[in-house]
């Protein structure tokens, strides 16, 4: 590494009205370096990166590329200085092909005569560096969220930028894609390109980075090398206090009554012949790689799609849900995987977003009993350690992870028998993740709630689930007791 940083941000401050998202933050990036930014939800990581890539302008502070001061008025200007971002939220043009999204605005050939062959060829090249299983001619809408995330990364790569920003690229990825992405980042940095990397998965951060900077409440708290970066050290920097330990005690649920029985459930192209029992007060983890049919199974159980064959029994009675409302009335709840598209109402406030499905409870004679609603939402927010300015602010003003917490809070406000959660802790910081796991565990004990917990993070399942169901390519491969489960064992089972 040379002395001259490729990029430098000096004394950056950013305010959103009264909110100070970043306060006097400085950092540098050298050629060939992976510089990770860690911090709790709402610490200001995305805000900082959005300033680096020209999506936002700093309130105060300066940016330098190769020692010369620059000002970015748009992402385009940042791109001409060789900076590109793969953002935290999916941001693709849904009805165009994968290839065209990768080379959006940069199709090959002349401006007045696009060379489609070359365009698809080049796009495929960039795509395959990141992942080789996605069809470059497919429409974006036909891809899973994880695949869309990979396309987004390929797009950042295709700009040939010298600096690529990865804002939580692995939040949606499972084991195999994550490994491929790590390899890819190592490859490009070996070529002398550099990366900013954001993730809540601390092992990844330690393995990949040359330097790690921690932010807390918009303030730079320190910068360490990977050799110092123990898990405890990183969590302490992020949270300002030592790490808690995860892992809940083993429970024996075999004598509990069965709440939900699923028998030979099948749906064309999605999953085949799935059977399992869910017991009262149990947390049943669901593990699997991308394309395993986990989400599809959850949606089908919830009545969002119809099964081709098979039976579902709730408390011993056959049920057939034609629409989610039937499932909700029967006591099922589903927390969807993709919060931006299926989870939030962008124009409503945080409180309204949280209380909307249960708003009847706060119905007064003519109006909503607002104070009560606020109190209840506030209580849950505190439990989940959500960070916000006012509950009346629009939900879009929250950081990604905090939006997720309020969506979880939404479902905790209602009484139910079965809670199906699809990647509930995706993009949520370490401490809050443990907090959420504790809340889930408490719900099963206090309310006798049964939970189906879909998660790509095996550690999480191994920490909190009572049994773990493994799926692969639409097939149920087996159900393992946590007592007997290990990470390797689960992977092996998935691929058997």
């Amino acid at each position, binding site marked *: 590494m040379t002395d001259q940083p490729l990029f430098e941000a000096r004394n950056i401050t950013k305010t959103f009205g009264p909110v100070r998202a970043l306060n006097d933050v400085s950092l540098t990036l050298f050629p060939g370096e992976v510089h990770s930014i860690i911090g709790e939800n709402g610490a200001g990581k995305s805000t900082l990166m959005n300033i680096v890539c020209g999506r936002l302008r700093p309130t105060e502070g300066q940016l330098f590329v190769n020692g010369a001061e620059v000002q970015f008025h748009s992402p385009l200007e940042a*791109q001409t200085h060789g900076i590109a971002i793969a953002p935290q939220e999916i941001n693709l043009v849904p009805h165009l092909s994968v290839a065209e999204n990768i080379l959006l605005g940069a199709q090959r050939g002349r401006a007045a005569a696009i060379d489609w062959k070359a365009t698809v060829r080049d796009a495929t090249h960039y795509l395959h560096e990141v992942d080789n299983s996605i069809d470059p001619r497919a429409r974006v809408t036909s891809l899973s969220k994880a695949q869309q995330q990979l396309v987004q990364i390929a797009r950042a790569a295709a700009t040939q930028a010298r600096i690529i920003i990865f804002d939580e690229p692995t939040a949606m990825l499972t084991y195999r894609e994550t490994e491929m992405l790590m390899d890819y980042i190592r490859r490009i940095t070996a070529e002398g390109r550099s990366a900013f990397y954001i993730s809540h998965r601390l092992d990844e951060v330690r393995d990949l980075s040359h330097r790690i900077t921690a932010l807390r409440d918009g303030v730079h708290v320190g910068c360490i090398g990977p050799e110092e970066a123990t898990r405890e050290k990183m969590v302490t920097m992020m949270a300002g206090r030592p790490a808690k330990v995860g892992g809940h005690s083993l429970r024996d649920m075999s004598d509990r009554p069965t709440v939900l029985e699923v028998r030979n459930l099948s749906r064309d192209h999605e999953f085949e012949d799935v059977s399992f029992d869910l017991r009262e007060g149990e947390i049943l983890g669901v593990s699997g790689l991308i394309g395993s049919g986990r989400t599809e199974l959850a949606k089908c159980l919830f009545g969002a799609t119809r099964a081709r064959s098979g039976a579902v029994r709730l408390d011993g009675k056959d049920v057939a849900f034609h629409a989610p409302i039937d499932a909700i009335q029967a006591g099922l709840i589903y927390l969807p995987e993709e919060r931006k598209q299926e989870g939030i109402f962008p124009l409503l406030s945080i409180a309204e977003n949280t209380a909307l499905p249960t708003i009847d409870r706060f119905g007064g004679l003519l109006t909503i009993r607002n104070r009560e609603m606020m109190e209840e939402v506030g209580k849950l927010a505190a439990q989940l350690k959500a960070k916000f300015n006012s509950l009346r602010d629009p939900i879009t003003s929250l950081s990604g992870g905090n939006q997720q917490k309020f969506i979880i809070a939404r479902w905790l406000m209602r009484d139910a028998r079965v809670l199906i959660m699809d990647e509930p802790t995706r993009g949520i910081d370490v401490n809050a993740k443990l907090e959420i796991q504790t809340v889930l565990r408490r719900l099963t004990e206090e309310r006798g709630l049964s939970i189906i917990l879909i998660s790509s993070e095996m550690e999480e399942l191994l920490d909190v689930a009572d049994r773990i169901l493994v799926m692969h390519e639409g097939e149920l491969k087996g159900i393992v007791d946590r007592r007997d489960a290990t990470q390797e064992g689960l992977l092996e089972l998935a691929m058997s």
Partner: protein
Amino acid sequence: MDTPLTETPARREKSLMARFWQWEASGILVALVVLTVALSIAADNFLSSYNMTVVARQAAFVGLVALGQTLVLLVGGIDLSVGAAAGLSAIVGSIALTQWGIHPYLIIPFTMGFGFLLGSINGVFVAGLRLNPFIVTLATWEIFAGMTLVITKGYPIRPLGEKFTVFGQGELFGVPLPVLIFILLAAVLVWMLRQTRLGRNIFAVGGNRDAAVLAGIRVGRVEFVAYGMAGMLAALAGILFASRMDAGQPSVGEGWLMGAITAAILGGTSLRGGQGSIVGTVLGALLLAVLANGTVLMNVSGFWQRVIVGCVVLVAVLVDLLRRKD
């Protein structure tokens, strides 16, 4: 391992039929064929070459306006001022011809330039200042329509002279010139949307504005051009119509707005932007013309025509819904 782990369970090659149904304009093509067959059986003069010319010419004027509207819809906007822009442009073009002595052959390019200017006004407010296109173009609609009346005081400008009326009235190989111009421009736009970067950027901006910004596309410029072209194409339709009538009527363009939007929507263009096609719009304009012509041939009262068009639009939307369901 030879099979990639992330393969979705069963992705099969789609059949030709399935691919046809995926196409946005498939429904309208079927509707158009059915309607044509039905009318040619019910009314024996429907397929006569004279009647076909009438239908084609009718489709051409609204169709030209609809092409521009399609571009604006594709970038995620809407232009309510196209009809009024056509009217005002036709008047200004007629005045340029009769009073300013501009050569008859230059009148059409001149008027198109003027129309682009009118469209640019929308472009500045919508693309530059990020105002709501519905409100902006509602306002300019009033302004353009009002200006037409201010300038003409309600009287037509005539005659326009034979040297100029040839563009609206003339034929080449038995095909009316306006129809040829319509087909030619549609072909140019098909090419533009498919093969040029500007065309692809139009889809990108309408499909996901944020993504387009991030990809370094000059989003404002793309929107601006779309509005400008909508104004330009409306002006072309207006001046051709004046040429055909041998008069710059203040009423040119009345009713074209609904026709243009309807044709685009029938052709599968989404009001939310990013989805649609020129071929669909051309078919939509044809369908509207065939419907209008059919009601006349079948001796249905003209008053019913609007009711029928409304019903057709509802059916088209329903078919589209079913198509997207599977």
